[in-house]
């Protein structure tokens, strides 16, 4: 009997940025339908890790395997399999919400009826209908995040990479985001969620990984009852850094 292959596998991935080690020997695996919370203080290496997983940044050493294939050798895999929402949703200010969805769809290889369908699905799901003709440059932060999320989900990726998606969202939008993440996971999408909000992790994640100074310090499964233990663990790591 063979075990199911994880969708995402990081094998001792390391990366230096701005003259310092941002991520060091990171080994992680993620299966379809799982939600992994990536926790860490600012500068812990979360965004660098997510950029590598999304294919925007190559590891200096180690490998990132997507569906069993090396992402460095097959960067086009990211186009099909990964949906990425960076920390600040990068939008083209002069384009409307609808034009963003069309452009992202085309860049992902969607066209014709498939593109129209995907766009309509995202407009409905992220409640973007009233904003469709609005320029991205005049959207509020929360609206920008919703548009970024719609662009990331447009091609129904197998892996959703979210870098602090709850930033600038109001409590109602946060609740909607959590529902969306759970729905995606239930549909078989693997999700990596980077955040420094512990409640975010305990609310939606199956597993948690804590990064500190670019290294993985803790990794494990999570239940809703683990909040206090997780908080204790996280602060122990964070204060260890402060003491150091």
């Amino acid at each position, binding site marked *: 009997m063979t075990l199911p292959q994880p969708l995402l596998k990081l094998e001792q991935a390391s*990366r230096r*940025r701005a003259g310092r080690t941002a991520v060091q020997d990171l080994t992680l695996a993620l299966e379809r339908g799982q939600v992994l919370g990536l926790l860490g203080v600012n500068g812990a290496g979360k965004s660098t890790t997510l950029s590598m997983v999304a294919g925007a*940044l190559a590891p200096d050493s180690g490998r990132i395997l997507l569906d069993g294939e090396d992402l460095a050798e097959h960067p*086009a*895999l990211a*186009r099909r399999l*990964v949906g990425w929402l960076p920390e600040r949703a*990068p939008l083209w200010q002069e384009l409307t919400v609808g034009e963003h969805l069309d452009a992202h769809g085309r860049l992902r290889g969607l066209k014709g009826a498939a593109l129209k369908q995907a766009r309509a699905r995202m407009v409905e799901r992220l409640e973007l209908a009233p904003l469709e003709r609005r320029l991205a440059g005049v959207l509020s932060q929360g609206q920008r995040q919703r548009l970024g999320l719609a662009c990331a989900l447009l091609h129904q990726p197998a892996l959703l990479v979210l870098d602090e998606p709850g930033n600038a969202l109001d409590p109602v939008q946060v609740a909607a985001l959590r529902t969306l993440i759970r729905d995606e996971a239930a549909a078989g999408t693997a999700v990596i969620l980077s955040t420094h909000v512990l409640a975010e992790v305990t609310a939606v994640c199956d597993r948690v990984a804590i990064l500190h100074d670019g290294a993985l310090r803790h990794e494990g499964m999570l239940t809703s009852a683990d909040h206090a233990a997780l908080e204790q663990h996280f602060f122990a790591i964070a204060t260890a850094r402060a003491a150091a």
Partner: protein
Amino acid sequence: MSALAVTRLELRRLFVRPLAWVLGALTLAWLAWNFTLMLGSFLAAQIRLAALPDGPGYTDLVAVPLLAKLAELAFLVVPLLSMSALAGERREGRLALLLGMGLKPSRIVLGKYVALLVWLLAWLALVVAMPVALAHATAIDWGKLAAAALGMALLLASLAALGLACSAFASHPAIAAAAALVITLGLWAVNLGARMAGVDDGALNWLAMSSHLQPLLRGLVASPDVVWFVLLTVVSLALATRRVAAERERG
């Protein structure tokens, strides 16, 4: 396919941003004014010129000088249009997003280049249309005009590639524009000293952009001149692609 998607996106952005419209409108108005002045001078001198054997005609005195004025404007317009194509994308985090979509760097560069070229060729077509609009009333040397238009198209194509390369390497769009302008002026006038010293041959003259554009504006299409512009375009696009590809490594 993905290059086409980048081109569509970039064209849409060009056509909704005020910069392209303002540059287009101002330069076309300036060129139309120059066209009127040159036409006036030509009409005033027409009788005297008609008496000269092989004297210059409408194409030499109006159409080609108008295209030469377009070349001067292109030195400034192309860097302004191309400056944010890659430098701006990088600053806003959108270049990482495009790379994260698994797009090949060559497709990103090519897509942006084609969009820029479409705008520039439309600009050139509108300028060429000015002298051509009077074709029914005067004798146009079509061969000479076609050679000059080809020269201008090659110039615009190479300046667009150069601007894109500068945008790929610069950290800020303004730096990209300044670098493209300085390099263009350098390439244009690199042989100035040699020519003043009476040396009309040699490597510096070969390197100078003016040495290759002027024969085309005079109606002489020679393959070394065409190859020079194609080389500049290809080398610039290759450098831009290389820099964008390094983005994944450099971060």
